């Protein structure tokens, strides 16, 4: 047990300084404004996709998933098994509509479809939900800092909050995509090294891990129970987790912002594809570390920490060679900063665009709005900090962040789906659906013994059905209100126009569509992952 040595501290400070230097160097090099715009375009799509992944979840995955795996083995992977399917829905339905609508915040679409009240309420729900989830994201690096220094986690939360808020207000460096990519690889390297050190410290190596995992049922990833109270059954993962991830990636402005900012729909699809393919293996990797840690703790007769989020950071600090621990911990910090910067930025942008400029100061100067956005960043930073103090009581951070979303996002997704698929629905129905959807989620959570993964399904089902039925009591929306969600070329007169033009245009022969191929690829990946889990479970159970 070397602990966090002076050399680790030097590496930690050096890494953070290097990242900051790259960021400032990048800014200094932008003498020509063309560089501001071209910077991201010279970078390959896979790097952009990895940077999106790094921003989304890497720090809380690193900290939370091993604790999850330690507690329940691979059974919790069903929460993420649906991600490729969720990405298909995003690629086919939500992203084309959001892109075509040309909106800054996705809640604008709901205003054009249902009116200002729906936009305001949905944007408010996003602010509340994302603000709370940001508290969990803030807690993650604070916990690491507490493990490293031995300081109280409450103190490290305050330190991290001050750092994150200052960093975001000063502009952040998340625009430097390559630093995000490096962080991603540092975290994966940390995970692989953890596996190496853990397995080599076991007398029987991999054999011990597989024997322990099989004997304690840790490889039983697929539970076919139809009992809705079974939290991680396959059905909860497929039905509940699917809506959870469609809602998370599709209706949370902090997630969809990069997709909206993509130069084209194909670029937006590409960044979603990376997540669609890599999220399951990444989660499997970190859950597996949890299984190996459980084997390690059992063989060495160790008592796990009360907060399972500390498991992997503690192991890294105690078992990694001097310098390597500093590098991995620095990677966690940098990744958390990137996530916090992105979340605080989207919270601030929605606050200014959807509330401040509409209800408080509609015609202020640019400088005033910049100041307002900075104030909003500080406000949401403080809000997240308050919640971060309670985040330690919520169990594994990766589950906490998803549970918070599940209280809000089902009804939010239901409202978007109502707007897109029901052309009869109107403002009255949307508001009624949204409110009853939210209450139904809370009622189901409080009154029924049901997996939290179903929260989003309940929210979607109630908000859509109530929304549709209540809509029947008020006039149907106008064609103008439907313009964002209807294919303009579907009208019979437009079909005649397009047929005439197509007949006179050059024939180019047809090829399988790129989007279709991408979606088939994602579906095949989902089947492959599910099949591999089934094989592993079959092997473990003899």
């Amino acid at each position, binding site marked *: 047990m070397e602990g966090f040595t002076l050399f680790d501290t030097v590496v930690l400070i050096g890494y953070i300084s290097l990242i900051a230097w790259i960021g400032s160097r990048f800014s200094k090099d932008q003498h020509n404004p063309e560089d501001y715009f071209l910077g991201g375009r010279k970078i390959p799509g896979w790097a952009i996709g990895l940077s999106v992944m790094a921003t989304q979840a890497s720090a809380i995955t690193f900290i939370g998933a091993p604790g999850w795996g330690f507690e329940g083995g691979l059974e919790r992977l069903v929460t993420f098994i649906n991600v490729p399917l969720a990405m298909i829905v995003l690629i086919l339905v939500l992203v084309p509509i959001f892109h075509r609508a040309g909106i800054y915040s996705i809640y604008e679409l709901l205003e054009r479809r249902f009116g200002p009240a729906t936009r305001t309420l949905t944007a408010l729900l996003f602010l509340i939900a994302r603000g709370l989830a940001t508290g969990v994201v803030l807690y993650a690096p604070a916990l690491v800092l507490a493990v490293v220094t031995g300081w109280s986690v409450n103190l490290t939360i305050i330190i991290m909050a001050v750092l994150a808020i200052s960093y975001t207000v000063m*502009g952040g460096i998340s625009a430097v995509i390559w630093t995000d990519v490096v962080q991603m690889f540092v975290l994966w390297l940390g995970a692989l090294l953890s596996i190496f050190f853990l397995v080599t410290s076991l007398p029987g190596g991999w054999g011990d891990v597989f024997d322990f995992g099989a004997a304690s049922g840790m490889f039983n990833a697929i539970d076919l129970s139809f009992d809705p109270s079974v939290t991680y059954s396959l059905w909860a993962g497929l039905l509940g987790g699917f809506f959870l991830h469609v809602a998370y990636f599709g209706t949370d402005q902090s997630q969809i912002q990069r997709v909206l900012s993509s130069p084209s729909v194909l670029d937006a699809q590409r960044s979603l594809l990376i997540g669609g393919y890599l999220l399951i293996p990444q989660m499997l990797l970190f859950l597996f570390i949890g299984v190996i840690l459980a084997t390690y703790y059992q063989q060495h007769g160790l008592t796990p920490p009360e907060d399972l989020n500390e498991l992997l950071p503690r192991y890294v600090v105690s078992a990694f060679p001097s310098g390597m621990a500093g590098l991995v911990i620095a990677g966690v910090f940098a990744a958390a900063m990137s996530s916090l910067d992105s979340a605080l930025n989207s919270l601030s942008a929605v606050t200014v665009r959807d509330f401040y400029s509409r209800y408080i100061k509609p015609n202020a100067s640019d400088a005033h709005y910049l100041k307002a956005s900075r104030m909003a960043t500080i406000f949401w930073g403080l809000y997240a900090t308050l919640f971060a103090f309670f985040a330690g009581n919520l169990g594994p951070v990766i589950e906490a962040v998803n549970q918070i979303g599940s209280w809000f996002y089902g009804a939010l997704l239901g409202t978007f789906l109502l707007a897109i698929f029901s052309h009869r629905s109107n403002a009255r129905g949307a508001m009624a659906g949204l409110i009853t959807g939210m209450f139904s989620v809370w009622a189901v959570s409080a009154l029924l013994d049901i997996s939290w993964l179903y929260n989003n399904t309940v929210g979607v089902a109630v908000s859509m059905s109530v929304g549709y039925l209540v809509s029947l009591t008020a006039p149907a929306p106008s064609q103008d209100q439907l313009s964002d969600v209807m294919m303009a070329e579907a009208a019979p007169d437009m079909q005649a126009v397009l047929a005439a033009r197509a007949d006179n245009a050059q024939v180019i022969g047809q090829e399988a569509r790129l989007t279709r191929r991408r979606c088939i690829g994602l579906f095949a990946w989902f089947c492959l992952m599910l099949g591999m889990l089934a094989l592993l479970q079959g092997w473990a159970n003899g």
Partner: protein
Amino acid sequence: MAERLTLARQIEEDTAKRRLQRLGAAACEPAWVSLWAAALGLPNGTPGAWLLCTKEMRRALLLVGTELPTQVEEPSSALNIDNGLPPTPEALNRLWLWERIGTPRHWRIQVLDSTPTPIWLPCWLGYARGRQHRLLVISGLSGEPMPMLKPIVLKGLQQAYRNGPESETKSSGASERREKAV
């Protein structure tokens, strides 16, 4: 009013065909869409990008480059879709403000001249046949799909259809939509 500039088509026919084919199109043709361009850059600096929009657009296209890639020849023989009036300077500045709020890295970049230049943007139109006919629009500058220009183009096509072939070089359509990058 300033003379309308014609942006040079950089995606040639073969490339456009290949790209549209990948998106499911079975037939294609060139077109031009009229927009208004405003220079973006550091205060007192040279332009580094251009906002392309029309009066009613709520989000603008972004064209990166120090100069507009123009050509001398005016658009000819293809379908020309004219979108009418320019945006006001206030509207232009506000469009750019929201882009900057969303991307703080762009904060220092400003609209350099609020009087926009009228331009012709080259596009390629693809026609896909399935249960219904579908329109695909890709940029003639980058080859990227531009679904947000579809409503403008559809209105232009409708107008041209009503007016007959002679109207193809002067069809009008109101702009409602916007695109992120060209």
